[in-house]
């Protein structure tokens, strides 16, 4: 059992932490403290993760047998749509940036708060209003278009498309406001001495994400507005009968939604960079390469949207270009993965729960990334398009990548956020269950998709049954792992040991203040003199894994 390296807290807790500095419900509801807002986001995204997770389990359970079990085709359509829409717009997009990012960004920069604290609060309430719209859509007539809202179906179905898209439209503004706030924070709020080459890699990742949020989300806003107008006034812009073009909607939608995929994964990369270097007690390999590859991914992400339209009738030339550009994403991504592995090499690795998640990420994300290559190959994509292969690839990147990184980050910064230590053994059991459950669920789906199982079907041919059952059982293991994690983390809030200010021996600025931090983060403005990954000599007597 590993015990953490404990460093001396330069300032014994004399001031109350941000959790107790002000009391009462109102002090939370109108707070402009980035740390409290981070926690409020965390609670919200976790709630929606739970809801959308329950929907996922319902889907997998329905698929246990080839025939209809307890869901009609229509119900199944609604359930997978809600699973996707809630996961994407209310969980993954805000998960790392709005929850962990809000909490950590000012701390890592040595600032007292984000640049616009009141805008930050507004952004939270905008998100809440968006959530209300989506919930109203669920409770009224549901939504059965898939999370992509493709026309012409979305303009003709009888379900609550307008309510739901209004919700997503509003959620977009929350995302824009958060992104704008973060970009300005990184530019203007860095502590004295922290130049761009001394910023933690998590900050680089959040910064790249924020740039995409600011530049891509407005296009989603206008797309959804056009869809709403199309549905209500019938302006015909996406309707071929009236002279419009349904493929135009796909172009519009993916111009946002492909960069949005990187909004979801880039912050995960940032977390992994922090976890790998801190828990291997070794300076990150290729700091600049990792930092700039985040920016490169952000740039390339804007010119690959056409790979979603390989079979939608776009020109062959466009297909070839988009295919080539999509391959190009592999380069900066591989630079990251190789740098992480090189960081681990000869490191003094402490096998903590957070580190386990980091290792799990390296496996699952790499599988997810590599399976993107066949999909970006034109000829192969014609076969694999709209099959379970795509479903598996997407989940390997989004769940195996982002969610695994998010949970790893949650463990890494849990002591800082809550001031409590969780049980390491419980953490490792949880990680193992999540890792096994995840791989069993989605590895199977690569084979299903390759054999031709189309996505979004509530019933299927009997020959697919065995693999569907394996996948469903895997989803139960995954759910058990996540529930287990929820339970011991909540338990630690009440029974956990008090956390030291720097349990893992990190050198970034958030570890320089007490756990949990005081309201204004630091007693004195920190001054930065070097890299955030220069670890002092490892103190063998203090711990590490033996």
């Amino acid at each position, binding site marked *: 059992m590993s015990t953490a390296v404990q460093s001396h807290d*330069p300032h014994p807790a004399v001031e109350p932490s941000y959790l107790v500095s002000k009391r009462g419900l109102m002090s939370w509801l109108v707070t402009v403290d980035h740390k409290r807002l981070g926690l409020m986001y965390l609670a919200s995204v976790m709630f929606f993760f739970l809801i959308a997770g329950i929907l996922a389990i319902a889907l997998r359970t329905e698929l246990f047998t080839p025939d209809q079990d307890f869901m009609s085709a229509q119900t199944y359509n609604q359930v997978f749509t809600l699973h996707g829409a809630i996961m994407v717009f209310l969980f993954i997009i805000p998960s790392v940036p709005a929850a962990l990012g809000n909490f950590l960004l000012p701390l890592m920069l*040595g*600032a*007292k*708060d*984000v*640049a*616009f*604290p009141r*805008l930050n609060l507004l952004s939270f309430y905008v998100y809440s209003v968006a959530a209300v719209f989506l919930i109203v859509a669920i409770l009224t007539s549901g939504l059965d278009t898939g999370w992509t809202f493709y026309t012409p179906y979305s303009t003709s179905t009888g379900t609550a498309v307008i309510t739901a898209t209004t919700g997503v439209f509003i959620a977009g503004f929350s995302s*824009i406001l958060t992104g*704008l*706030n973060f*970009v*300005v924070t990184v*530019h*203007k*709020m860095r502590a004295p001495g922290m130049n761009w080459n*001394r910023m933690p890699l998590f900050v680089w990742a959040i910064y790249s994400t924020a740039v995409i949020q*600011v*530049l*891509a*989300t*407005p*296009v989603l*806003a*206008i*797309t959804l*507005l*056009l869809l709403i*107008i*199309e549905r209500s*006034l*019938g*302006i*015909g*812009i996406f309707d071929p009968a*009236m*002279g*419009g*073009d349904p493929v*135009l909607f796909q172009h*519009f939608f993916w111009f946002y939604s492909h960069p949005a995929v990187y909004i979801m994964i880039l912050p995960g990369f940032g977390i992994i960079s922090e976890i790998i270097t801190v828990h291997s007690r070794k300076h990150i390999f290729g700091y600049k390469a990792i930092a700039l590859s985040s920016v490169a991914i952000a740039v390339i992400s804007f010119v690959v949207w056409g790979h979603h339209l390989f079979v939608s009738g776009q020109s062959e030339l466009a297909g070839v270009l988009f295919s080539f550009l999509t391959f190009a994403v592999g380069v900066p991504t591989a630079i990251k993965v190789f740098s992480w592995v090189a960081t681990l090499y000869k490191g003094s690795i402490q096998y903590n729960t957070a580190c386990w998640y980091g290792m799990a990420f390296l496996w699952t994300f790499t599988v997810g990334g590599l399976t993107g290559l066949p999909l970006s190959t034109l000829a192969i994509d014609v076969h694999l398009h709209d099959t379970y292969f795509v479903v598996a690839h997407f989940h390997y990147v989004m769940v195996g990548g982002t969610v695994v990184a998010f949970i790893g980050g949650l463990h890494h910064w849990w002591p800082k956020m809550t001031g409590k230590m969780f049980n390491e053994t419980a953490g490792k059991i949880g990680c193992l269950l999540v890792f096994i459950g995840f791989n069993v669920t989605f590895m199977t789906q690569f084979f299903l998709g390759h054999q031709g199982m189309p996505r979004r079907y509530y019933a299927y041919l009997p020959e697919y049954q065995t693999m569907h059952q394996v996948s469903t059982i895997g989803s139960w293991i995954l759910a058990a792992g996540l529930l287990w994690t929820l339970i011991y983390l909540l338990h630690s809030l009440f029974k956990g040991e008090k956390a030291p200010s720097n349990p893992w021996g990190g*050198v970034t*600025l958030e570890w*320089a203040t007490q756990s949990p931090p005081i309201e*204004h983060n*630091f*007693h*004195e*403005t*920190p*001054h*930065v*003199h*070097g*890299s*955030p990954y*220069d670890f*002092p000599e490892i103190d063998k007597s203090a711990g590490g894994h033996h």
Partner: protein
Amino acid sequence: MSNEHAHAPAHDDDEHNPHLAHHFDTMGQQTASAKLGMWLFLATEILMFSGLFLAYFILRMLYPEMVLEAHEHLSKWAGGINTVVLLTSSYTMALGVRSIQLGDVKKLRLMLVLTILCGCIFMVVKYFEYSAKFEHGMLPGKYYSAHLHGYEIDGLPHIFFGVYFMMTGLHGIHVAIGLAIMLWMFVRAGRGEFGAKNYVAIENTGLYWHLVDLIWIFLFPLLYLVK
């Protein structure tokens, strides 16, 4: 360790500036943040409108003759007057920003009133334009009924009017929001909240208003002056 604690240097009179928020060290930092935030916001606005501009170009590429014929039914006079009015309002807005930089609150308030006046003229002209379109049945999509009012336009003119109303409508909403913001700035200026050293809110309002103007400068030729 990379992060040693050192005593934060004391800043000049900024420490006591009532306009300095708790989380900033200096007024300079605060002002620069507000400006950068505004420029980013303007970028999001441009990207939002770019979707509509793209829709317009595709429409024009697909049906060049229909667009040419349909646009003849837009009033070049109304569009032209509104262009002049908005350009004038940008000028008065710029003068307002200049006034407050020199500490002249009274002149700022005058300029805000003039700008608001121009914005209102724009909206009134727009109202008459829209009314005419409604009367003639030149409406978006399935509500299009100009042929019943004796206007025969070949092709699919309803889609042109759909895009016309989307673009000018969204722009009109931005004008209305701009008017509300300027009114608010007028009230705040009256309470003495702005001065020669604290005018970033006015400057940002100006930036927003110039963007609204700029978008119109593109809308006018694209919609009214196709030929």
